[in-house]
């Protein structure tokens, strides 16, 4: 798994590539919490290159979502592929955060 961040229109776009499971989710949690601590509290997580995510990945997203909102920011998701999209829906995550079809769409809606 790889994680990268870029800034665009005052948004931190965190792109994850690979699988997010119990082995790799800790890295996601740490990376996202570091961004938020650095003041990048408006986050878009780009899931377009994530081929697999388990409940461990959802836990990492939920932790970061709470942290960003506590700082007055927000965390949104973009580009989830069908399998990942299904677990987001099953778990009710799509009711508690914004999930966009593409990163481009997310930036257009949220960017400053």
């Amino acid at each position, binding site marked *: 798994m790889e994680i990268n961040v870029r800034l665009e229109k005052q948004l931190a776009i965190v792109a994850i590539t690979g699988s997010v499971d*119990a*082995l790799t989710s800790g890295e996601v949690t740490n990376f996202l919490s570091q961004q938020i601590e650095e003041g990048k509290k408006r986050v878009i997580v780009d899931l377009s290159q994530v081929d697999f995510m388990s409940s461990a990945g959802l*836990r990492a997203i939920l932790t970061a979502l709470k942290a960003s909102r506590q700082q007055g920011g927000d965390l949104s998701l973009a580009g989830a592929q069908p399998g990942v999209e299904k677990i987001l829906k*099953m778990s*009710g995550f799509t009711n508690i955060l914004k999930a966009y079809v593409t990163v481009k769409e997310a930036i257009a809606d949220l960017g400053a």
Partner: protein
Amino acid sequence: MNQKHQITRAAEYQSLATLRDFIEATCKGYPGVDDQVLYDLKLAVDEACTNIITHGYAGMNPGSIILAIDLSPQQVTMTITDFGQAFEPSETPMPNVEAGLEDRDTGGFGLFFIYQTMDEVDYECTEDGNHLTLIKRL
């Protein structure tokens, strides 16, 4: 005709990707197994094995996990065997998926996903180990 496949791996998080790859290699392209079914199979096994590694072998030397897959035209049967502490899936509380952010607990989704994606879940604890059987109909 049924196809049977089996893999044994150490009960550690590093094995999760190997087990998912084994499911993909075994089941992809089998009649009735589309991308969504394949994801469901990988998700259910990943969650079950994560529970075994985190809870089943907690406080013990890591043992092994055996994953057996039986493919038939009607269904995929996956049996996961471990030798850790037993747990009863039906006694584990399910998460509230309707909860708002403030009331959300960060755990509990693993077993929920197993029940949501599989058509049958059966657990048996014997002298030969704990056997979790997961059935997905095609």
